[in-house]
């Protein structure tokens, strides 16, 4: 067996599995950096996966290769709209942000399958899409042995995800917008004093969060599964939260954690191929990301510092 090929495939699969997590954890980053807890990432991903699949389905006959792009774009818009109730509840009505997030997760799970059944005559899943994203190969670079297949041959969404990591890092740490966003999440009172509109910033952050998480969901339905059903997302939103915490609310950290969780997923198939399940039960590999997150949070694998005002509604005039 050629170890080069195995390793090359492993890296390739890792990138495929990580893409959705990168989008979603970046989404979580915007919201939480602004001080709004977002455990609704799962629901937002579900809405994205659903919208992406349905819109692509609607356009696939007329637009062929362009359809998944329309679907992907629509998913981002749907995600922002879906996130709006979370912003209204947690920013304007000062609701418990965790509870509001729980409600959105419920809503997404119910609404998406309800609508799927209406659109597809009672079937619990969309028909298999005839037009989804194909893999892109970077000219010349993808001819490099092993390395070419590993990182220069991927879905366009993967390339976009890595660009978003860089973009987010630049936006959050190098621009006035990013400074305001962080100020609102660390010390909303001080931000308010210097004239930053705390509510507006938080509304924007939550809606950006919805868009990015929805892109994460659409990535799954438009690349790996080619359809939408109730288990398309199945818990990846929660892993994205874990990646965000693991990555200490930093874009590069979140990306690193997402890649790590992606490896865990990629290894799963590798373990099965080699028959290693005799020694390590697959259930333990499934469990790994969650156990690691708990250990990280307990401070056993390095400390994780959340934004100071995370989860606290801001009342004008409060300290």
């Amino acid at each position, binding site marked *: 067996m050629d170890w080069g090929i195995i390793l090359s495939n492993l890296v390739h699969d890792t990138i495929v599995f990580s893409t959705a997590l990168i989008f979603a954890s970046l989404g979580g980053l915007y919201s939480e950096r602004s001080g709004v807890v977002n455990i609704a990432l799962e629901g937002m991903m579900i809405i994205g996966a659903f919208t992406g699949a349905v819109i692509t389905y609607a356009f696939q006959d007329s637009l062929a290769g362009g359809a998944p792009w329309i679907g992907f774009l629509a998913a981002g818009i749907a995600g922002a709209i879906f996130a709006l*109730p979370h912003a209204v509840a947690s920013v304007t*009505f000062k609701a418990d942000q965790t509870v509001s997030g729980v*409600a959105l997760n419920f*809503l997404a799970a*119910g609404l998406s399958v*309800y609508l799927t*059944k209406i659109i597809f005559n009672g079937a619990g899943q969309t028909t298999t899409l005839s037009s989804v994203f194909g893999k892109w190969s970077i000219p010349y670079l993808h001819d490099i042995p092993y390395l070419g297949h590993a990182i220069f041959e991927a879905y366009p969404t993967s390339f976009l995800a890595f660009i978003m990591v860089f973009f987010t890092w630049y936006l959050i740490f190098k621009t006035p917008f990013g400074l305001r966003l962080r100020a609102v999440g660390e010390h909303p009172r001080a931000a308010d004093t210097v004239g930053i509109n705390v509510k507006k910033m938080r509304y924007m952050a939550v809606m950006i969060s919805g868009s990015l998480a929805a892109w994460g969901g659409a990535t799954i339905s438009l690349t790996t599964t080619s359809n939408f059903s109730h288990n398309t997302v199945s818990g990846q939103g929660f892993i994205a939260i874990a990646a965000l915490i693991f990555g200490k609310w930093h874009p590069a950290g979140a990306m690193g954690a997402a890649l790590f969780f992606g490896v865990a997923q990629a290894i799963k198939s590798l373990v099965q191929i080699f028959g290693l399940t005799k020694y390590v039960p697959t*259930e333990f590999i499934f469990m790994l990301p969650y156990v690691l997150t708990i250990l990280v949070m307990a*401070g056993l694998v390095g400390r994780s510092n959340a934004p100071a005002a995370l989860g606290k509604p801001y009342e004008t005039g409060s300290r």
Partner: protein
Amino acid sequence: MNRVIAVFTKESFLVPLVAIILGLLTGAIAMLAGGFNPIKAYMALLEKVFGSAYNFGETIRQITPLIFTGLAVAFAFRTGLFNIGAEGQFIVGMIASTAVGVSFDLPAYIHAPLAVIAGAVAGGLWGSIAGYLKAARGVNEVITSIMLNWVALYLANWVMNAFFVPAGQQRSEMIHDSAVITIGWLSTMFDSARLHWGTLIAVLAAIFFYVILWKTKSGYELRAVGLNPHASEYAGMNVNRNVVKAMFIGGMFAGIGGACEILGVFHYQAIMTAQPGYGFDGIAVALIGGNTPLGVVLGAILFGILTFGAAGMKFGAGVPVELIRVVIASVIFFVAAHGIVKIFVKPIMKKKKEGGN
């Protein structure tokens, strides 16, 4: 009579009530948008639940685990903790009772209680992991309990596969008859609906919840810590110990719930591909019930009726069963954002005051 009316017009009752109505309205709008008749659908839902002895009995079966997980969330909430991990505690309770039910051969009067206790202890210990991490290392219990839910799911599947599932099967061996807690005569009365002693245990658990929190010294401490941990600390209470204790008791409720599902309803445990969802419904139940034992029981009845009756909506009006998740989600949302509800409640409250009571 006036006292009864006074209770129901109090804000603590009015907010959930209006939230439920708004939730049902949201569901109705979703149905209209989908081209269904909401009145026909809701009628079909009620018809399903109350139409036959069998279905009525099965609705009671559906309500029972919701009381347990509702109590699990509400108990932790009373001590200032958000127990989003009832799901995992429920699963761990299931597995522990299955293990005891399959492994031992004992007389029924020992076997069944032992299996229930095993579920309770397992659920309690699972809950106290999140409590311990909160107390000892200041870790947010919301995230740890979400993670622990997934760990519980996979751990349970592994334990099942490794010890209790015959090769090539997707479910464990049947538990021994001596561990079964089905009530035979009651089941016969309800056309063999799966009624079991768990329902009675659930009601007792709600009473236990009330007594321990409001009638004992230790309950006073738990509530005090929930209201103001700093003041409690100053008054000489051990905040950390109370946090672990609260999560243990909360987890115990969920664990018994899981045990009763196995011992009373299924009599075996299946390999799970996804979370069964009782714990998440428990969050809704606790919120609707205002985290009081009576409220939890009423909330569980409401959600039990909605989830069981959803099948009737499908049959009677063609509405996909998932619609009911939309209703439940809206109810949770409106309870969470009670500011929105108060906009609707305010005119009613005002009118009452002007009425000159």
